[in-house]
């Protein structure tokens, strides 16, 4: 579960966004859509903690785990500086991923790098022969990643950008509002907190069978021991804190208390 994984590819795919491929056959074999790994970005004590990243997809034959990441701070900057052949300590796969039913109709709503775990999910759903509609919003058209790959999976794809340079002009939630939600069994979503909150509000009005959201929170251990990654969730017994790392990162939209 903790591997010294060699970096097989490290490529800039947009301004500040990178894709890294790691040789970690056991993780590749076990990974499910929505799960994540925790990566050490330095072997020194600074920065200290591992960084969580969703599994963007795996190549089981070649034993590869792929991650999409954006440089937002020191850890990701150090990661982007690592060259091919270097080894990274990778811990995973971790967390409870998305529900993947054998059949049904599905919609996926991605904001920015939220596409990372959702792409893996879409791959899986399509491999099972299911219909998938993808709503995908990003700040600008350069940050609309993986479009060809999504096209190759033959999904219905709707995109949005803040300035309308590609697709709908507005947020992905505006887009969804404009297009209307297709009749689906499950709607999946991942993206920045404010987007998920707005989407949750919209879905409450819209009424939908089941919505699964992938959440993010700062993490310590990644395996449920430290209780650092608390998210408030409604239960029949009232609100409780659950752990994003093991109770999630995927939660039902309706159970999350947005604060």
């Amino acid at each position, binding site marked *: 579960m*903790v591997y010294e994984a060699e970096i097989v590819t490290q490529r800039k795919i947009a301004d500040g966004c990178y894709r890294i491929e790691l040789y970690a056959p056991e993780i590749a074999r076990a990974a499910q859509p929505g799960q994540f790994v925790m990566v050490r970005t330095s072997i020194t*004590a600074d920065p*200290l903690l591992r960084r969580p990243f969703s599994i963007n997809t795996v190549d089981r034959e070649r034993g590869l785990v792929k991650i999409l990441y954006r440089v937002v701070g020191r850890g990701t900057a150090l990661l982007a500086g690592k060259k091919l052949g270097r080894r990274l300590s990778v811990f995973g796969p971790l967390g409870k991923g998305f529900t993947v039913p054998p059949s049904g109709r599905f919609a996926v709503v991605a904001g920015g790098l939220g596409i990372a775990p959702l792409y893996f999910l879409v791959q899986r759903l399509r491999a099972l022969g299911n219909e998938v509609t993808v709503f995908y919003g990003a700040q600008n058209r350069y940050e609309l990643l993986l479009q060809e790959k999504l096209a190759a999976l033959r999904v219905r794809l709707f995109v949005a950008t803040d300035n309308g340079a590609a697709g709908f002009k507005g947020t992905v939630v505006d887009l969804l509002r404009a297009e209307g939600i297709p009749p689906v069994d499950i709607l999946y979503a991942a993206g920045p907190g404010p987007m998920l909150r707005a989407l949750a509000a919209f879905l409450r009005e819209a009424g939908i069978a089941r919505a699964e959201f992938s959440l993010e929170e*700062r993490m*310590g*251990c990644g395996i*449920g*021991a430290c*209780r650092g*990654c608390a998210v408030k969730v409604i239960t029949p017994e009232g609100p409780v804190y659950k752990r994003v790392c093991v109770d999630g990162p995927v939660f039902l939209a309706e159970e999350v208390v947005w604060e």
Partner: protein
Amino acid sequence: MKPELFVDLAGLRLKNPVVTASGTFGFGIEYARVVDLAALGAVVLKTVTLKPRQGNPPPRLAETPAGMLNSIGLENPGVEAVAQDILPELKRRGVKVIASVAGETIGEYATVAERLAAAGADALELNLSCPNVGRGGLHFGSDPETAAAVTRAVRQVAGNLPVFVKLGVMGADVVKVATAVAAAGASGVSLINTLPGLAVDWRRCRPILGNITGGLSGPAIKPVALWAVWRVYAATRLPIIGMGGIMSAADALEFIVCGATAVAAGTGNFVNPRLTVELVEGLNRLLAAEGVVDVKELIGAAHRRSG
């Protein structure tokens, strides 16, 4: 030849000096898929209170230079859940268990301790530095008399289980508090708990933690922890569980030569989920390389060299 790693920690027989730091290893079971729990000296459980506690609002963690802040707020399922479900499970797995106890009153400490002792804990650790406790928010551990009173109350209900008292370094001099709790019946002390700290996002102009302040742990605090272990050992020769920033077997040996009989991995578990077992392996390797046949020779050894 493999060096001898067995240590006697105030009557608690540990197959090696490596234990876990309360709160960083859950109830052990969370780590069972990466670590063979029975291979450790002992597992120190997350601090348990009488009633379940929800903990503090998120964010609860912030990274700092070579360290981290946490403001978990003693989230735990309460003593009954631990006594009924968790302790038996750990015993079944052959794990040696040190149960960590906190309360809002002295009476609560005693009640929780008694319940955990009855449920099969091998030893108790009293967390005297938990926030939101009795006496107007004063920490039990920051004043020698209060610390002694808690210790006395727990000692009475703990039968012959070893009782360790966990101390921080803020407030009263740690040597005074250690001396007071030893006189009140503590079998040893656990050093150190987190230091107080704060992290702030200057652009958003507010503290990062939902609780504003938190506890600082990790390599950053190692020198302070070694200082505390050194002084308490020099003044009292009490059995000590040393912790604070241990990331490697070399770090563990630093605590041992300063006076620790056992060493706890805390924040280091997050950085390296297999740290505990790797500490055991590392101790074997380093001691063998230096020709040390028994780890016990090194306990407090730096005092003997420095007079």
